[in-house]
């Protein structure tokens, strides 16, 4: 089966090593799904470690979650009480429209993810693993196929179940998944600790696809090997997705050693000079100017130093021939429409914010409107049950800073010539295969 995520083929150029042991090493991604036989021949079986040994290994590795917030995996695992049968949920609902690293892992390396889920299940004493993803027929087929390959080899432990959740940006938020599995409504909840009080009261470990794939390799090759990649503070390799104006939007690549933005953009995006700006971490992420980023390292640590989150690893390229304020307005409008509609400050505040951004992008807003926008941003930050509104604040706030000189012109009624461009630089719908 070949992958229908078409531009994925370009990922093969991205420093992939056929004989290597990192996440994307092995057969070319354009070859499609790696089946169990190849997976086992290439990486060997996993050692059958005790739950205690796994927990110690994860602690020593310093692995941080790869779903966006970077929460320490060891801490998450140790927050699961032992003695009650826990549940493991593989979070495969990559909702960021421009991100596809998790889809690529699920499609090309399903057994890496399932191995990791089995390791996590052992660590918390779970017998059941639920693989949750958006209703994507392509991924569902691959996952069901991979599960039956494992059953054919007599691997019945843990039991894997595939659950297809609804579309929607916030439906992949971990408390929304727990809610969906209980009630069928994928809506974020407030301060619910799913590790203790998860699906139907059971302790539930929700882990991102990439995080689990790392576990599969960590158990095989050990802490020392794992820490050879990344930095002391953010060990291990990191997946990232290229988006926006590049030769190959949608390319997924793996950052093994911290590498400069300039080098990544040259080798993977085909750029020779810094772009106007970069959108980092996701749609609820941060803009950074291309000039500033060019010689910086594209790594979670160096981004954290300047207050930017690595998030889901999105690296979005804004070309010189685009208006950053307009693209921000488009994304903010998209995100406002993706509110779950539960919290007033979110479902009322986000459209108000994106509305002002649109007016500003068109050159129809004044200095007074900018002040109003600032007040709305401060009224929205931290006011939701989940962090969805906070993401919009981060996006808009960083745009006002990075595109400050454009903004001054817009406020005088002189929008950029590209502000009228009818097409968005970044995708505004989720990529889901319904065939």
């Amino acid at each position, binding site marked *: 089966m070949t992958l229908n995520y078409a531009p994925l083929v370009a990922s093969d150029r991205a420093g992939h090593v056929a004989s290597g042991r990192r996440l994307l090493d092995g057969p070319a991604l354009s070859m499609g799904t790696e089946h169990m036989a190849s997976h086992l021949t290439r990486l060997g079986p996993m050692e059958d470690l005790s739950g205690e040994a796994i927990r110690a290994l994860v602690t020593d590795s310093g692995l941080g979650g790869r779903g966006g917030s970077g929460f320490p995996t060891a801490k998450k695992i140790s927050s699961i009480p032992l003695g009650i049968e826990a549940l493991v949920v593989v979070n495969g609902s990559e909702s960021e429209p421009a991100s596809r690293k998790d889809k690529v892992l699920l499609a090309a390396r399903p057994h890496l993810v399932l191995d990791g889920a089995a390791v996590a299940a052992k660590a918390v004493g779970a017998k059941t693993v639920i693989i949750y993803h958006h209703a994507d027929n392509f991924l569902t087929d691959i996952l069901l196929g991979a599960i039956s390959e494992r059953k054919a080899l007599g691997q019945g432990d843990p039991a894997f179940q595939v659950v297809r959740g609804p579309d929607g940006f916030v439906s992949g938020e971990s408390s929304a998944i727990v809610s969906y599995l209980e009630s069928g409504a994928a809506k974020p*909840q*407030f*301060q619910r600790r799913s590790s203790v009080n998860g699906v139907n009261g059971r302790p539930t470990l929700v882990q991102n696809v990439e995080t689990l794939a790392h576990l599969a390799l960590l158990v095989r090759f050990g802490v020392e090997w794992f820490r050879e990649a990344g930095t002391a503070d953010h060990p291990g390799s990191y997946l990232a997705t290229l988006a926006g104006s590049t030769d190959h939007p949608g390319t997924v690549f793996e950052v093994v050693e911290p590498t400069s933005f300039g080098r990544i953009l040259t080798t993977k995006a085909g750029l020779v000079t810094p772009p106007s700006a970069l959108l980092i971490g996701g749609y609820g992420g941060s803009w950074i100017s291309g000039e500033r980023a060019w010689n910086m390292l594209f790594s979670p640590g160096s981004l954290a130093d300047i207050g930017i989150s690595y998030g889901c690893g999105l690296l979005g390229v804004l070309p010189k021939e685009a208006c950053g304020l307009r693209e921000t307005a488009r994304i903010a409008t998209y995100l406002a429409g993706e509110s779950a509609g*539960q*919290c*007033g*400050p*979110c479902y*009322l*505040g986000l459209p108000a914010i994106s509305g002002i951004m649109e007016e500003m992008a068109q050159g129809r807003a004044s200095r007074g409107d900018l002040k109003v926008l600032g*007040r*709305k941003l401060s*009224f929205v930050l931290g*006011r*939701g*049950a989940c962090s969805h509104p906070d993401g919009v604040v981060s996006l808009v706030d960083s745009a006002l800073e990075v595109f400050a000189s454009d903004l001054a012109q817009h406020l005088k009624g002189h929008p950029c010539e590209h502000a009228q461009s009818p097409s968005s630089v970044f995708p505004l719908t989720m990529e889901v295969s319904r065939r």
Partner: protein
Amino acid sequence: MKYSRFMGNRAEDGRYRVVVDPLLCEGYAICILAGADVMDLDEWGYPVVLEKELIGAHLNAARRAVKACPTGALKLVEITS
């Protein structure tokens, strides 16, 4: 609670803040009347908490606000740090 008469001391020693559960809050705004100085309304009619840490009269105002909320959306929580 059984030994609650000692809890008074604890409440004075402890540090508290008010948390609004945005899922339960319906914007009745009764907390604003009961807990003036601690709560205010945003422009959409939902309460914002003005004080990060409640001391003295503010703590009492916050207790009144918590009690007054018809949807049970407010909680007094101890600050742990």
